[in-house]
């Protein structure tokens, strides 16, 4: 994926930004940063410098204030990613439920290792920490959707469905 060169929110998202800023007291528009970064990632897929600069301009804060925040929180992708980013829970309770075995299978199925993107650009595989679904594990998340009670067969079905 290349650098986005036309970085502008859709009119709906621009309206949403104004709505979000209005939630906070006067002069506290910096509080809108995390919600607006989520909106930005929804539209632009990852946090290029251009995207972060754009967010800074919308909130009238310095670009560096955006860089330091985007790099602190693990949900924001600082590199280009595939169409579907699989965020796989690697933490203890999910491991007890068979998480490591299912993760090996998932890597085989995709033909990539953690941190990589498939050659067709469809999938990026990331490991994340506990997703607050420990009793429903093993689990991963793709965008807003949680996939739980995973096993090898379920993983195959999900990947095949998303590959269509």
């Amino acid at each position, binding site marked *: 994926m290349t650098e986005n060169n036309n970085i502008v929110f859709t009119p709906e998202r621009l309206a949403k930004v104004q709505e979000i800023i209005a939630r906070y*007291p006067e002069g506290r528009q910096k509080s809108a940063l995390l919600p607006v970064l989520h909106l930005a990632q929804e539209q632009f897929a990852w946090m290029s410098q251009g995207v972060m600069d754009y967010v800074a301009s919308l909130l009238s804060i310095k670009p560096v204030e955006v860089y330091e925040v985007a790099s602190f929180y693990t949900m924001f992708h600082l590199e280009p990613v595939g169409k579907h980013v699989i965020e796989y829970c690697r933490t203890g309770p999910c491991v007890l439920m068979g998480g490591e075995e299912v993760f090996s299978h998932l890597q085989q199925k995709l033909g990539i290792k953690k941190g990589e993107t498939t050659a067709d650009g469809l999938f990026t595989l990331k490991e994340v920490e506990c997703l607050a679904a420990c009793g*429903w594990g093993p689990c991963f998340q793709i965008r807003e959707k949680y996939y739980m009670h995973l096993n090898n067969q379920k993983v195959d079905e999900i990947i095949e469905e998303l590959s269509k």
Partner: protein
Amino acid sequence: MSLKILTEHCSTPGIETLEVYRKKGGYTAVEKALKKMTPDEVVEEVKKSGVRGRGGAGFPMGMKWSFLAKPEGVPRYLVCNADESEPGTFKDHYLMKTIPHLLVEGMIISSYALGANKSFIYVRGELMYVIRILEKAIEEAKAAGFLGKNILGSGYDLELVVQPGGGAYICGEETALLESLEGKRGNPRNKPPFPAVKGLYQSPTVVNNVESIATVSWIVNNGGEAYAAVGVGKSTGTKLISASGHINKPGVYEIELGLSCDEFLNSDEYCGGVRTGHRLKAVVAGGSSVPIVPGSLFLKNANGEDRLMSYESLSDGGFATGTMLGSGGFIVFDETACIVRNTWNFSRFYEHESCGQCSPCREGTGWMQKVLNRIEHGKGSMSDIDLLVDVSKKIEGNTICPLGDAAAWPVASAIRHFRDEFEWHIKHPLEATKPGAVYAGAVLV
């Protein structure tokens, strides 16, 4: 069946809607509080209930509320902590997605009690689908006149905002959460000043967990004394326990505090016992940060008395033989679990989540993770075990926020109770690193 204060209606179809929630008695507590009670009277009932913060530390909620500074002309804030990222904990997730109005109603009454006109629910960003559920519930509540200006003609105004996090366990620590809510990195603040005096936007602020706030409607409806009559001693009321690991029925359960640990683990009403065909090895009773104990010490304390699911009973024996109720993140290990591997996994978590501000935590978590990795992968030496104990002691109590302790305790307790297993890994690296290998010498229940 025991009393269900929070989850009674969770399996009612449509309970996520205002309509069904109201049919089950929802929002009567808002009417009662705003029309018939003063804010101080609400605080008084919460004090009487003895309810303790459900986020992990167990600090009495009414007492926290009464510490809130009230300088003239300065806004006050209530912030609900829905960051839920402690490994093993998924109760707030369950409650919010299932019965969102319970939290919204609790937020309205609590905000009224504290005199806050703008309150926030800070939800971990991964739970964006839950944020949408909460936002919908808030819209419904607003349309019905329970939020906004002059609620139910009482003259009280409240706006409720749901704020997403961005993926960072440390933002569950209350001052890091406030930094994050101000649009910054989640670096915990030095205390004092405490949030009750200088919190969000430097204004007096109360931070409470989702489950804590969700109890308030019941307390207002039934009175603080009725709540205090449930439970045992200073562990009043009910607690949500999220159970995971090697049990027959993982899930979220509401228990009356004081339930016997044996009944919680083994009865069909709750966990349904250790996975069929397996035996109990160890338990983490309250989220990854609390000490891990052998199964026998979970079921009975060092004097051989039955342990109860309560703050006091679980911590009985201190760090030598006890653990903690913590957040209610209940994790069970059977004989197939490798304690060394689990300890390494948890220490990797804390290294990953340390914000890096204080060197004992930043360096210590990294060091412990590396040493544990080495032992787990057959490259450890005997002196590594004492090294781990030493590093954990240097972190404990020497940091800005409790994440340092939270990283130290699981390591120290694993070595305290399962030293043999660490030694086995070091003495028999070839055997220990075979796929699926586990130490056979553990005492099982």
